[in-house]
């Protein structure tokens, strides 16, 4: 039985192999002649088969065997990659995925796909799956009195690490007490000609007839083909040694030829190993172990901050020196650990290429699916949680965004549509865009629908960007209604939830007739951020440093204000201001050195009036409990150097509060 950890390793490995397999198949769709990719596909299949069988997926193993046979035909040049082969192979991929997940699809599927794979590769029937175990040789008939076994070990037996004594011992074990072993010395050369590493002796072994022939053959399991071996049943009295079998020339010739070949290979081998510097050795680690390290690093960073606080109080030079070293090490460790968690988006791109392939098949729309920036790295958790929302959005772009070829032609667009997925880093965020060049969203239809659904009121003056976002609201519509509206919405509220759960945001821009862009902004990581510690009243709060644009002295005209909101002019632009002390209902009196911290998100800014700027710190983010998690103004909490808890302000929420104020101000001005 495999332990749970081994099962988990297998599961992860299978997942990676499947991803590689799918990726390979999709690449082959574009470049069918790439033999390196064919070899990769073959290897993935091969490993899935081998390990699958070892972990109890026998149906999978035998199916993959046939799948592999198809690609073996391609690999050996007997067949070529055709679009049909890729289509069948992708369906076969789905079957494997289902089997790996423990599903029990209709067994007829296996045969159907095996036949289709065979047909797609030159119509030849594939080799039937080999029986998982060697075929049983029937037991020796009861009347066999003895077995007369004669054998000569391969000449290089010693050289390759074989042990003839152990082999004879094993035969004695199999045969029991009555076993007779006699050496056959007829081929001994003269001493001068003798090579000390070669065994010239053969053996004759007489074994009881009750033993199965297989049990005897098992002893020679590795060498049967390379050695002289005869096993004869003896029915009467033990026969005298039979005539020597013809010495087989082949093994000798092989043995002689062998050294020449390795010598050549040995020279090339180190070069070959060096020639592939890109292949950094990979280590697969269960994600929860990395999480554990991350937790420890978080604790270390906190302990380090406490140490620094104490050292500063003591003003001991030597201690401060050590603290600096520890600070540097802790930061290095933090960065390395975070890097462990970073995964490129490419790890999930295979799924989207596949999706676009399937969508093209099912919708009959022709389009190019382009991916940009798939090397962009994100926290592993973020990448995983992003998969489903992206699937929804790409599906919707094709289903509802893109027009059919005729409609496109009629409106003067190229018949081939375009769906683009692009990713890039922007500060502490990753920006992901899903772009289509389809018909765009119909603002009026969405507005009408939103009013019907009670999401908007008739007279509400909501900007276009907000109207479009209504499609992301739960209960906006059913799929059918949305299609009729030429809008989107299948699972769109799921998208919104998932992105918000990742502390991300979604923006929609759309031009009628030109297409739609969904812009997702996500934080790089959910674990540790560089923070700016500020004081408001008696409490301290942390802000993500990367969102801080500027820190200003509070202008005099604002110093006396007591309302929660205000506005200042900054570089000829009006920026809404939040007085945090009022927003938080803190009754302590304002400091005389109030500052404004300008923070930005989504290209919008808001000023926060604070009582004090304390400094930067490593902010280890702790999630808030359900008791507080719905307070959107805080994204989490952190522990400070003195052991106190500080809340982390959610800049995106603060900025949207600021925008509301701005809207109101504009409203009153108008």
């Amino acid at each position: 039985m495999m332990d749970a950890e081994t099962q988990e390793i297998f599961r992860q490995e299978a997942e990676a192999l499947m991803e590689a397999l799918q990726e390979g198949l999709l690449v082959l769709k574009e470049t069918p002649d790439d033999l390196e990719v064919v070899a990769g596909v073959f290897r993935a299949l091969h490993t899935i088969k081998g390990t699958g069988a070892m972990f109890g997926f026998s149906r999978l193993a035998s199916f993959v065997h046939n799948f592999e046979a198809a690609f073996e035909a391609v690999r050996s040049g007997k067949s070529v990659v055709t679009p049909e082969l890729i289509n069948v192979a992708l369906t076969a991929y789905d079957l494997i995925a289902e089997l790996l997940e423990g599903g029990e699809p209709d067994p007829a599927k296996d045969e159907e796909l095996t036949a289709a794979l065979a047909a797609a590769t030159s119509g030849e029937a594939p080799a039937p799956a080999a029986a998982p175990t060697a075929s049983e040789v029937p037991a020796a008939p009861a009347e066999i009195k003895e077995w007369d076994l004669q054998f000569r070990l391969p000449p290089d037996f010693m050289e390759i690490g074989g042990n003839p004594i152990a082999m004879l011992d094993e035969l004695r074990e199999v045969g029991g007490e009555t076993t007779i072993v006699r050496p056959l010395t007829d081929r001994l050369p003269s001493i001068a000609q003798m090579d000390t590493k070669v065994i010239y002796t053969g053996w004759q072994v007489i074994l009881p007839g009750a033993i199965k022939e297989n049990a005897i053959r098992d002893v020679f399991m590795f060498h049967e083909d390379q050695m002289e071996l005869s096993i004869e049943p003896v029915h009467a009295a033990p026969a005298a040694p039979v005539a020597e079998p013809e010495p087989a020339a082949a093994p000798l010739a092989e043995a002689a030829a062998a050294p020449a070949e390795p010598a050549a290979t040995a020279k090339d081998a180190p070069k070959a190993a060096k020639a592939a510097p890109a292949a950094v050795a990979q280590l697969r680690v269960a994600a929860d172990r990395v999480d554990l390290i991350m937790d420890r690093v978080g604790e270390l960073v906190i302990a380090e901050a406490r140490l620094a606080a104490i050292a500063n109080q003591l003003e001991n030079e030597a201690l401060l020196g050590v603290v600096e070293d520890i600070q540097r090490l802790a930061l290095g460790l933090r960065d390395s650990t975070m890097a462990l968690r970073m995964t490129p988006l490419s790890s999930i791109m295979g799924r989207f290429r596949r999706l676009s392939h399937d969508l093209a098949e099912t919708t009959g729309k022709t389009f190019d699916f382009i991916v940009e920036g798939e090397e962009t790295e994100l926290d592993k958790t973020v990448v995983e949680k992003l998969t489903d929302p992206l699937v929804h959005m790409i599906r919707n772009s094709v289903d509802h965004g893109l027009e059919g070829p005729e409609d496109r032609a009629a409106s003067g667009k190229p018949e081939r549509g375009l769906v683009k997925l692009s990713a890039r880093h922007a500060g502490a965020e990753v920006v992901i865009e899903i772009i289509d060049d389809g018909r765009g969203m119909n603002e009026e239809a969405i507005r009408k629908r939103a009013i019907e659904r009670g999401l908007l009121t008739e007279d509400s003056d909501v900007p276009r960007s907000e109207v479009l976002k209504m499609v992301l609201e739960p209960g906006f519509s059913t799929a059918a209604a949305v299609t009729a509206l030429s809008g989107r919405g299948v699972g769109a509220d799921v998208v919104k939830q998932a992105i918000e759960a990742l502390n991300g945001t979604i923006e929609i821009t759309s031009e009628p007739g030109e297409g739609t862009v969904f812009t997702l902004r996500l934080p790089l990581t959910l674990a540790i951020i560089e923070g700016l510690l500020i004081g408001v009243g008696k409490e301290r709060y942390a802000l993500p440093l990367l969102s801080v644009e500027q820190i200003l002295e509070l202008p005099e005209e604002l110093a006396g204000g007591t309302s929660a909101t205000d506005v200042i002019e900054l570089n000829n632009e009006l920026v809404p201001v939040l007085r945090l002390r009022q927003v938080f209902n803190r009754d302590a009196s304002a400091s005389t050195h109030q500052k404004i911290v300008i923070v930005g998100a989504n290209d919008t800014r808001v000023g926060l009036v604070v009582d004090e700027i304390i400094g930067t710190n490593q902010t280890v983010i702790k999630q808030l409990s359900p008791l507080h998690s719905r307070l959107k103004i805080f994204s989490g909490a952190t522990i400070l150097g003195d052991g106190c808890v500080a809340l982390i302000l959610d800049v995106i929420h603060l900025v949207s509060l600021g925008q509301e104020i701005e809207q109101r101000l504009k409203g009153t001005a108008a």
Partner: protein
Amino acid sequence: MTKKTYADLIPRLNSVVAFEMGGEQMALPTDVLREVLELPALTPVPCAGDFSAGLINIRGVVLPVADWRPLFGMPLKAADRETRILIIETSVNEQTMTVGVIAEKVHAIAEIDPDTLRPVPAVGTRWPKGTLLAMARWNDAFVAIPDVVSIFENQISQEPQLVGAD
């Protein structure tokens, strides 16, 4: 953890923590109690309402602390030498949550005689509906046995107070 009901309560009465707030005696079965702490530095959470007393750091873990007194209409007494925090582990919507509850005084770990168990009178008490599992007697006084699961689930299902940006 499943929802504890009145009937489930009887076997749990042989070990309770007896404490006090707003002059009322209260008791909680110790199977939900993790520890009793002196009041550590408490970070208030603005805009979270008076049920939330704030956040504390317990050995590197940030825990929320609840103040039940406003819920029971009790006056807030400033923290003193006797103030304690009961760290309890409860389930909220099927998920485990560890949370602190402010107690003005903690008496002892005690045993309650199941025969003294009484349902909460429907009227004429200070206890809002659904906040107690039962009443009982201990040391010749009434003790209230709060319904921890229901208190927190009700509290969490309430809309959070909006940020007072106006």
